[in-house]
């Protein structure tokens, strides 16, 4: 963007913008969604954009351009229907929608055709003129991983993404890539290499939508925004940590996709390991994206690999059989549509992990994730060490449970601390109580959706909640070793009843005296 007047004596920043940061709104920008006819756009992305507009977090110079193969002559009207259905705020505010719809347009074309990018370029030039989007672009690739490289090549060839400029106020182009980021380490590495041949790392935003969840971010605030927890957050006081990412639903008609993926690639490699890094990381020196991500990568590097025969004693893989979930009878995984009757895809995975560093040496991290479990829950529980001396247990009465800190990520987001208190009356009887903070109670039920935060951060250029290349590859490196080990050693597949908490074989992963929590 050419400066109107150049003067070496001028201020370095716009003094009129001072104090506007409290709104943290996005700069003028066009959001270009590749895969605009897909499910993610309908259910998540456009509703997120609408809610950002309603919260006045997008600039008045904002536009959305959808790109997909199918014709969509009524793109804005169609998106309004989806917003009406999927937005967390209803009904749709007509005034806000009208303004948003003015900046919505659509480009039809195949992603492998040069003409598509030419049309897109013309459309973006029009949008810059009429909406003032100032050549700032966020390209959201809501497409399968195999289409990502060709889209990025097409954008680069058409001059729609350029090397980033250091000049203040220069236009930016960023590319948001959805998971899965590869399907193993070699493919993730190849994808990174391909993207980095066209873009700078600073232009690539790899999404893991769990990082956009308020409660996941609250994990960092809890740890590093308070003085009382960090002194307890280590092997000195923590006996073991349990991480659970459980779903009560099955594959929901996506059997064909799931057969090639399994829970380990679908959930554990990304969401569950992200939670692990946030729980286990050292305090960053600053909230700068690289400072935070450096600490997360260090966790992955200190994670002791599980490979070879170790997979047989440190991991359990399972698959749901038929059962009852929330009062309804459900079929076994192998009876789901598009699932092979002899499928060996795992729908459950549990493991015990060790972190070889000063903070966590000797503390087991138990992780489990599965489909068709008893309830939908994602939580982290720090189980503290038992008392060194039981002052109040001489008569054998009272609870023997050590303290625990539960961070509930979903649903019913919040934090609870379990501790013992004296039961009123004679004697000293101890009962466990929970001191409970629920997000919904303190801050209302309508917290921003994860995609709202992530899209906004991509527009603002804040990469803290996005995954870096080395982080993704470290995650895949850890998971690949496990999957290879399963293959080499013919790891058994344990069937569990749908509606239970997984195969009983997972109990053997725990140290003596430890038990899987029943959330």
């Amino acid at each position: 963007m050419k400066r109107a007047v150049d003067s070496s004596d001028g201020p370095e920043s716009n003094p009129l913008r001072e104090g506007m940061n409290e709104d943290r709104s996005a700069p003028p920008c066009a959001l270009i969604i590749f895969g605009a006819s897909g499910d993610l756009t309908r259910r998540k992305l456009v509703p997120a954009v609408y809610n950002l507009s309603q919260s006045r977090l997008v600039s008045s110079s904002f536009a959305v351009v959808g790109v997909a193969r199918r014709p969509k002559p009524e793109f804005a009207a169609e998106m309004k229907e989806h917003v009406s259905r999927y937005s967390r705020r209803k009904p749709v505010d007509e005034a806000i929608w009208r303004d948003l719809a003015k900046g919505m347009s659509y480009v039809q074309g195949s992603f492998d055709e040069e003409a598509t990018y030419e049309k897109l370029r013309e459309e973006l030039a029009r949008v810059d003129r009429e909406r003032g989007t100032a050549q700032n672009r966020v390209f959201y690739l809501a497409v399968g991983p195999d289409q990502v490289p060709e889209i990025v090549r097409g954008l680069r060839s058409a001059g729609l993404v350029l090397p980033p400029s250091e000049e203040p106020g220069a236009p930016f182009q960023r590319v948001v890539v959805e998971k899965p980021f590869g399907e193993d380490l070699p493919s993730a590495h190849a994808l990174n290499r391909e993207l980095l041949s066209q873009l700078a790392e600073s232009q690539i935003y790899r999404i893991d939508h769990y990082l956009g969840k308020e409660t996941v971010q609250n994990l960092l605030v809890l740890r590093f925004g308070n003085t009382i927890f960090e002194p307890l957050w280590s092997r000195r006081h923590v006996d073991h940590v349990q991480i659970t990412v459980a779903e009560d639903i099955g594959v929901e008609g996506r059997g064909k996709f799931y057969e090639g993926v399994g829970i380990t690639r679908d959930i554990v490699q990304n969401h569950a390991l992200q939670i692990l890094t946030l729980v286990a990381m050292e305090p960053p020196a600053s909230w700068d994206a690289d400072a935070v991500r450096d600490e997360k990568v260090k966790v992955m590097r200190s994670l002791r690999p599980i490979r070879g025969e170790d997979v047989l004693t440190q991991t359990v893989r399972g698959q749901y059989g038929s059962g009852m979930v929330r009062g309804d009878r459900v079929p076994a995984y192998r009876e789901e549509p598009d699932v092979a009757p002899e499928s060996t895809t795992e729908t459950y995975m549990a493991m015990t992990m060790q972190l070889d560093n000063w903070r966590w040496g000797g503390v087991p991290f138990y992780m489990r994730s599965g489909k068709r479990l008893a309830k939908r829950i994602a939580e982290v529980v720090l189980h503290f060490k038992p008392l060194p001396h039981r002052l109040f247990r001489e008569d054998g009465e009272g609870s023997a449970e050590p303290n625990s800190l539960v961070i509930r990520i979903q649903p019913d987001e919040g934090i609870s601390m379990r501790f013992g208190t004296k039961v009123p009356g004679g004697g000293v009887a101890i009962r466990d109580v929970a001191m409970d903070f629920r997000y919904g109670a303190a801050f209302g039920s309508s917290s921003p959706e994860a995609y709202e935060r992530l899209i906004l951060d991509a527009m603002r250029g804040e990469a803290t909640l996005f995954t870096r290349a080395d982080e993704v590859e470290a995650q895949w490196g850890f998971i690949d070793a496990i999957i290879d080990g399963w293959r080499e050693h013919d790891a058994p597949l344990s069937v569990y009843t749908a509606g239970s908490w997984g195969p009983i074989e997972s109990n053997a992963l725990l140290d003596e005296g430890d038990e899987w929590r029943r959330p």
Partner: protein
Amino acid sequence: MEAAVSDSIPAPPLPAGQLSETLNAIERELGAIWAEPDGDTGLPKVRASTLNLAVVSGASQLDGLREVTDTLSETHAGRVFLIYGDGHIPPWSIQHEVSGVCRPSGGQAAPVCNDRIELGCGAMVAPRVPSVVGALALPELPLVVGVARGAPRKISEALVTVADRVITDSSHTAVTRIAELARSTSAPVCDLEFLRTRAWRELCARFFDDALSATQAVSRVQIARTPGGEDPAALLIGWLASRLGWDLSGAVEPGRAVRRDGGPVEVELVEETVPNLPPGELLGVSMKAELSGETLSMRCWRNDASSIVHWSRRGPRHDDHEHTLGSRDEARIVAKAIDGSGGDAVCREALLAAALWQRRQGQ
């Protein structure tokens, strides 16, 4: 603008302990609210508390304020005090009404409640209001004091001295009055009208985004408004002056400001009536800067009662855009005022400069 609570009639001194008895009664009623389980679920009520919010207003504003604070409690739950003056109440008395506002928290879980205490004040109790509020406020939580329309002067003045945060509204309270309040407290002051006009300020700011030097070379500002009400131009001028370092002191002619480099800034205020727009609404801003022999100008204007403004820039760059000013419900504006940080210093400086400007214009 202040409620007409007469302080010219001498009244007998307050009998010892009278307000304490009122406080005791309030505390008993609060205890009863929290002791009773929820009528629908039979479960104990859950309290959510993030702040104490004390809003001072005229009695006529209560209905509207109840609605705003109920909505606000969904995201900023806490104890709400609605404090008003009423000439019908005996001078040394406080009348009270206590209620619990509950909302379901989904499923079979207990509802989440917060309480509201309404305090109608007689003419002489203003100096004691901070003590009453202090005794009833939830511990360890900030006290946010809002000065709403018709707020009795003495009650506002007393409360802001104990506030952790003050919220004002220059759409109905003169900026000179707000400046007095701001000087009497060390708490941050956030003005609701300052927040409502953020879009105007952002549109002004973008004129200079790629012409930073022009911020030191503004020679003319024209601001248009609808007639009546409090003058919205004062706050905008105060903001421009405080950000750009203009001198608005008494040494400068009315209708002018002086830039840092000593050059003049002509300030023209225009009134226009636009059908369906209320009094005291901003209609437009235009600015001109002279830099290295070139003239740069910006104009941001609305032509009708719609929220569309036409923004144009002339000079080495020509740009024309339309923007929507947008609208927010009041609860959200108040929520932003409560949460606001980083912009507090800017708002305070703008208010003080606006007050200086307004005094010089003899308004």
